């Protein structure tokens, strides 16, 4: 007669998915929070040294990176709007722009770090040991925090590239776009962290 079911089909729950991404974002905020805590302790202890250290950074490149990230946040948010309005082509273009801006950020980072390495300034370098203590701590924090942040940029780019393919294949569409929404949320987090990192690293008075 009728076959009785043993297993019910998996239901989709976008709200749960989004909540899950927000919770993950909380963990990322606290992860960086630990570094911000260390930063605040040492900046309070070595204010002059931190100021001098920040003079070694290029405010111009930092500002360009900030602008790039802000624009990329807007473009990925617009990509979500585009998908909601069923404009697949625009969504693809906007996600691509986001990825290009992310690449610009990473290239700038590479240039900045490269310049430091050339001057013998890198974690564990012989030169570091000769610096004043506050300078050493400042640069250790600089490399650690911007490095961890860059790692998150890469992760974000991977997520958004996956979204790009999903949009192209139609997996993400105007009726089902939670993956893009979550990818965008992660990207905004990366931007959010930089919004705090930039003044604290580059603009110390």
């Amino acid at each position, binding site marked *: 007669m009728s076959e009785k079911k043993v297993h019910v089909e998996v239901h989709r729950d976008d709200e749960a998915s989004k909540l899950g991404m927000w919770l993950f974002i909380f963990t*990322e905020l606290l992860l960086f929070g*630990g570094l911000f805590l260390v930063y605040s*302790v040492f900046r309070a202890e070595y204010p002059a040294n931190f100021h001098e250290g920040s003079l070694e950074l290029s405010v111009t490149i930092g500002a360009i990176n900030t602008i790039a990230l802000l624009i990329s946040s807007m473009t990925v948010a617009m990509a979500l709007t585009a998908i909601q309005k069923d404009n697949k082509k625009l969504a693809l273009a906007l996600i691509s722009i986001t990825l290009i801006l992310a690449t610009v950020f990473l290239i700038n980072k590479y240039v900045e770090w490269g310049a430091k390495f050339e001057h013998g300034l890198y974690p*564990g370098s012989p030169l570091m*040991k000769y610096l004043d203590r506050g300078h050493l701590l400042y640069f*250790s924090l600089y490399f650690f925090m911007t490095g961890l942040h860059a790692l998150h940029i890469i992760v974000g780019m991977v997520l958004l590239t996956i979204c790009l393919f999903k949009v192209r294949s139609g997996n993400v569409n105007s009726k089902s776009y939670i993956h893009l929404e979550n990818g965008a949320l992660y990207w905004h987090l990366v931007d959010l962290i930089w919004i705090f990192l930039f003044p604290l690293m580059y603009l110390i008075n």
Partner: protein
Amino acid sequence: MSEEFEKTEYVSYLEHKGKYTGIRSWIYTLDHKRIGLLYLYAIIALFFVGAILGLLMRIELVKPGETIMKPQTYNGVFTVHGIIMIFMVVIPGLSVVFGNFFLPIMIGAKDVAFPKLNRMSWWIYIIGCMLAVASQFMKDGPPDAGWSFYAPYSTTTSTNVIMATFAAFVLGFSSILTGLNFIVTIHQMRAPGMKFMNMPLFAWAIYATSWTQLLATPIVGITLLMLIAERLFGIGFFNPDLGGDPVLFEHLFWIYSHPAVYIMILPALGVITEIIPTFCQKKIYGYKAIAFSSLAIAGVGFLVWGHHMFTSGMSDQARWFFSFLTFLVAVPSAIKVFNWLATMYKGSIDLRPPFLYALSFIFLFTIGGTTGLLLGSVATNVQVHDTAFVVAHFHYIIFGGMGFAFFGAIHYWLPKMYGRMYDMKRATVAWVIIFIGFNLLYFPQFILGIQGMPRRYFDYLPQFQTGQIISTVGGFILITGLVMMVYNLVQGVRKGEIAPANPWHGSTLEWQIPSPPSLENFDEAPVVKENPYDYE
């Protein structure tokens, strides 16, 4: 939210034949119940490894001087004992075993919110365990800095610190993802009619625990990364020669590790809150107070970490602050104890093994908790910090508390999980032996500590030997009881009597379904009661 409940046919989750067979049906399972059992087996195995390491320490301490191991070995043993017990047994502990198995059932759901993430949490946990084991055997030797890895020793010792801390980092990831999964499960997957205030209190406990896992663990994650960077690159954060501060490491470490002890104990308090009403056949006294006290413990628990650091060189103001908050956080715990006792009053008491474990929990937890107050007061703390007193305190709370709650949970829920009963008499005998062994093992250490016996020392003055001998004897009695307990449970699972759906006349949803549960828990829509503790 209005969907027709799709009825299914009963097939025990243990017999269900899915895509995979044999061992792959376990390793690739998406069923929260099987995942709970996988964690259970890993945790029992690791617990006994940790217990044997503890026993080795007890043998070493039975007389002054070198007994069975060199000092360096002793340092390695207490380090790995702590790493295993804390990161692999007690922190995951009740959450991953009973939270996984019973949270969805108790709220009327068919699984957790993200089953694939749940499976990944288990795989990550196993990888973390393997990395920790590896750190014991790699070429630089087992880490010897204690499970708390204080700088500057941890940043300079030549042993395998990086591998061990990386293992802890990986295990932390597993913890975070489990917490995330449970929070979303509770928010999104409660059955119709199951409001927050209708949930069993074990679910509330898991909820509070999950928030702590989610928010506290990242901080130790980044701290361990900083430690690794310090060893690899000399970044200087914790090195006074480079301008850093070792006490900063302690702050960062304890900002996680104090909430971590609440991760350990909150589910335990939740389990006791389930067992007591069932074995008194009486509604829990003060449901709301218990629910909110779980949240309060989790919240205030984030603010007390400095009580581990009273002798480290913090300012006086910091010490006042942390001491005051430590006394504050004791209040919600005490509320629970009062409510349990009030539940028992005029209840119909059933002294079977789960309830015996619950009663002994209250006794041991109270000793642990009140000695915690002694430690929380700065003036007395400076006398007993880093002595055997602290060791006794935390073993009473963690082992006497969480450990006994774990044993109680297993005795309570095993009939449901496997559909079999165990021998009650043997379980009771095992419990008596465990209880006696436990107190003989740890109570003398309170006295030794006050007399001045330091912790983590492999040698000591002859005046401490009597207490050490009693303690060691207690250790052997304890492990005998533990082996008996496990043997009895295993025999029950293999050849015990078939268990009914509701052997203890419990009221929460897991007792409404067959033992063992069906693959998706509820073959028919669960009947959600407004009062989860309804024994009429």
